[in-house]
């Protein structure tokens, strides 16, 4: 009886959060799935059940298929880069070295900048007569097209997003590294392990938990990248930076076809879940 009373009290405390979750997240999610099966005609008027029509339309659409390809390529490139760089920086900034706290602050600073502002800053850097080409010119190198070239647009976005993201993910890894017991590190040092050996054989296995979290959370956040694409490239040139999240936005609010956009959202969520499930499987296999 007492247990039941406790349960009710707990439920009462949780109710506001659960209610918000239902109203703000679960209901819209269900509505997205339902709406993705309908279509609407401006000329004829009215909502018509289309079954899987929106999905088949999407899959047969060249731009959508290209967008999936670009998103997968982007995911394969950006996540390992960001996780490895964050880890290396975390290792570096947990060393007892002069000025490491100052450097740490500098790396963390971009987190405080909203993505839209970062994108505007980088739009100036990437301009033909911008900062990046100014530096290249000083070094005697030819000017680069960055955002207007098919080959360079994705790497340029990866650099920008890493500038924003690496500091943030580094924080989790620093916390993880600092939790590695001092005795373990000292034991490794006494055993004569070098810096590289200590990092690979001691620190890396012991920060696996935060590392797994960073990998998954980073993957999800990179699958949802939107502001820099909208501000800097609008998905171009030739759709080479048309990441799925931006494509969803274009279809929903620029083209105005909300039902096809909902179908694309469902596909994007499915893709995200598939990639993350794959990552879990890989991590488990390692153990």
């Amino acid at each position, binding site marked *: 009886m007492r247990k039941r009373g406790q349960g009710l009290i707990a439920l009462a405390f949780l109710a506001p959060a659960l209610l918000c979750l239902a109203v*703000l*997240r*679960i209901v*819209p*999610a269900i*509505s*997205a*799935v339902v*709406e993705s099966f309908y279509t*609407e*005609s*401006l*000329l*004829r*008027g009215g*909502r018509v059940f289309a079954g899987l029509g929106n999905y088949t*339309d999407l899959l047969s659409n060249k*731009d959508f298929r290209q967008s999936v390809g670009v998103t997968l390529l982007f995911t394969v490139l950006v996540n390992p880069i960001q996780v490895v760089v964050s880890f290396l920086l975390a290792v570096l900034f947990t060393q007892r070295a002069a000025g490491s706290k100052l450097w740490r602050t500098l790396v963390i600073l971009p987190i405080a900048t909203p993505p839209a502002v970062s994108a505007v800053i980088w*739009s100036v850097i990437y*301009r*033909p*007569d911008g900062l990046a080409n100014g530096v290249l010119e000083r070094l005697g190198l030819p000017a680069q*097209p960055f*955002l*207007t070239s098919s080959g360079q647009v994705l790497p340029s976005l990866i650099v920008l997003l890493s500038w924003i993201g690496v500091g943030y993910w580094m924080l989790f890894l620093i916390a993880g590294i600092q939790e590695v017991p001092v005795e373990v590190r000292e034991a490794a040092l006494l055993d004569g392990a070098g810096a590289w050996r200590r990092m690979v054989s001691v620190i890396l296995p012991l920060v696996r*938990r935060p590392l*797994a*979290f960073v990998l*998954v959370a980073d993957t*999800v956040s990179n*699958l949802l990248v939107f502001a820099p694409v*909208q*501000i800097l490239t*609008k*998905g*171009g*040139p*030739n759709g080479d930076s048309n990441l799925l*999240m931006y494509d*969803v936005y274009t279809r*929903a*609010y*620029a*083209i*105005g*076809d*909300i039902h096809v*956009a*909902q179908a694309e*959202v*469902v596909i*994007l*969520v499915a893709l*995200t*879940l598939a990639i*993350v499930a794959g990552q*879990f499987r890989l*991590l*488990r296999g390692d*153990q």
Partner: protein
Amino acid sequence: MRRNLLPAAAVVAAAAMLVAGCGSSGSSDQPAATDSGPATGTVTFTGTDNAETYQPVIKAFEAKNPGIKVAYTQIPFDQFNATMQQRLSAKDAGIDVYTVDEPRVSQLAAKGFLTDLSDLDGQVKTKFSAAAYKTNHFRDKLWSLPMWNSTQFLFYNKTALAKAKVTPPTADPQQRWTWEQVEAAGRKAMQSGGTKYGLFMEQPEAYYQLQPLAESLGGGSGIEGDDALTPAVETDGWKKAMQWYGATFASGLSPRGIGGFQTGPVFANGNVAFFVGGPWDLKIFGSSKIDWGVAPLPYFQGGKPVTPTGSWSLGINPASKQQGMARKFLEFATLDAAGNLATTSTTTIIPANLDAQKQYTPKMDAFSGAKTAGAAAITAYESEHTAVSRPVSVGYIQFEEVMGKAFADIRNGTNSDTRLQEATRQLTDAWKSIR
């Protein structure tokens, strides 16, 4: 390992729901007539221009209508249409009056995003030009009231042209330059070291500014058919115009990678010899240090002169709970000549109200001293002889979106013929769901 999967799984679930929740469903139901709401309070007005632009009209309106306040919200141009689609489809009552890009009237009306204003039809017919009257109609009903009109000028850097020993174009529409002349003179200016670039358009990826290129070569608007839902962007005129346009960037005559609202400063800083811009620039460039002048918009040799026209109208959100006050403000800013003039006192744009226009146009010559001499005559000539509206189509929003991306790609070096072919395919796809 299992335990540490929990936070990660939570992140995935939260993110997935965030994505799923981002699209709320729209509806094409026509709004039911609502009562006119309270007689006093605050009307919210949303547009793309900075707040300064609307201060004079808001002040004049509030003085005339005690008890009604107008609160203006700016949404940057690049995000305006998408944000409005989102808010209007969510039936957001936080918007009462908003600016409507004229070619979008049909689709906004069809989607139920505009209040029917047909009872004002008679007044609109007498107070505005026939073109403005027509573009604000859809299915024989009036949905928005024209606020502004526009045209385009060829701005030139006098100092750079003098350095290149080029006689600048005159303001006389009868002696209008061709694009070929502009290109040759622009190259001379670059070679003589006067400027970094020869020619630049203010909105290098916007249909509004590029339509005249194709139309000058007889390429048509890009839309045809009885229901105006058939793409026609692969005509000879379009192909030739876009080949030329792509080449201006490939050869370095125009710069790549500078877009949005970063183009004007390139001219104001003296980095380009010729710049295509609107009446708003007559005042904006006045504060720049360079010496410049205005000439009529060029045309292609063998083609005909065509200039863009049209601008923002004002409409009322059907979800607004203050229809009466909203309408009062809307009528003041458009039908009332003094109110309409007040909308153009800080941003130099052409008022759509014909009475206001009569008072306004002669003043254009003096916006920036001697530099703007001739602007009034050019404006009057173009509106009568060369102005071509953007096409009226229920699919215009999709059209503008698809073409904007095509222009961007052509500018960045994609073959124009294949890109126009691609645009036809994308338009056919996008319009499929409208039919």
